[in-house]
């Protein structure tokens, strides 16, 4: 199999994820974009690992680490989204004014 196909797929997914992060209003949907970008990177790592084929399995090990970090990231991200929702009553990042408590109260 040609090495270019996985790499191109990863580029496409990265671009789509970037669009999701930039264009979405809802914080949870922005997290979906981040997940897409992380997966693009993972795919790159696995493809290069299979191409390079070193004995340390560095690409696949790094992918496993990234999956674990992504799980941690989604846990923290969702905690922040829940906090945002509590403070403002919506998960819309554009409407969020959460700099200080006074400001948030004033905005309401």
């Amino acid at each position, binding site marked *: *199999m040609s090495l270019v196909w*996985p790499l191109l797929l990863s*580029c*496409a997914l990265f671009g789509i994820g970037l669009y999701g992060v930039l264009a979405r209003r809802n914080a*949870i949907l922005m997290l979906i974009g981040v997940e897409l970008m992380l*997966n693009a990177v993972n795919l790159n790592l696995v493809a290069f690992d299979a191409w390079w084929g070193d004995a340390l399995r560095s690409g696949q090990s790094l992918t496993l680490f990234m*999956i674990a970090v992504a799980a*941690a990231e989604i*846990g923290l991200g969702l905690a922040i989204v829940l906090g945002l929702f509590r403070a403002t009553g*919506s998960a819309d990042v554009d409407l969020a004014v959460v700099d200080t408590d006074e400001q948030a109260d004033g905005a309401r």
Partner: protein
Amino acid sequence: MSMVELTFLMLSGVAVFSALLAVSTTQVVHAALWLVLTLGAIAGCYLLIGAEFIAWVQVLIYIGAVVVLLLFALMLTRAPTGPDSATTTSNRNVAAAVSVLVAGGLAAIMVSGFAGERLAPPRGGVGSAASIGDAIFGTWVLPFEILSLVLLAALVGAIVLTRRGPERDNGAPGDVPERAQH
């Protein structure tokens, strides 16, 4: 073009199509579901490249935990999940232009750098749990230990962030948004 390559291209098509829908659908829950399809297609790609262990870990962690957690949060925030609940900002055209530029630039670099390189057909044991386990608990054991600290920090951080302060009253856990109003 071999059978493996053809399957890979089909899975890529599924992944890209569902990823596009995941970032463009107007329904938050549908977006999460399209993400599931993308992640599943990527797991299939891993299988074709020969990374069997990674593929099943991808299904187990990403599909089985991360996206379920996303859905859980969608339901927990009690934000509207009906139609037109997933709007995009007005600068989506700029965002699309930036994304196309980034993806195109990356793709150009990849093609110019690696065109003509070929992946060897998956050999037995390359992506097996045994070889990856040897690598992680041998060479990469220090990053592994640090990663466990990162996970612990994330766990503590998530608990701290979602805890309500000591001034919590006796309100039922569900009435938070109302509480925030007064």
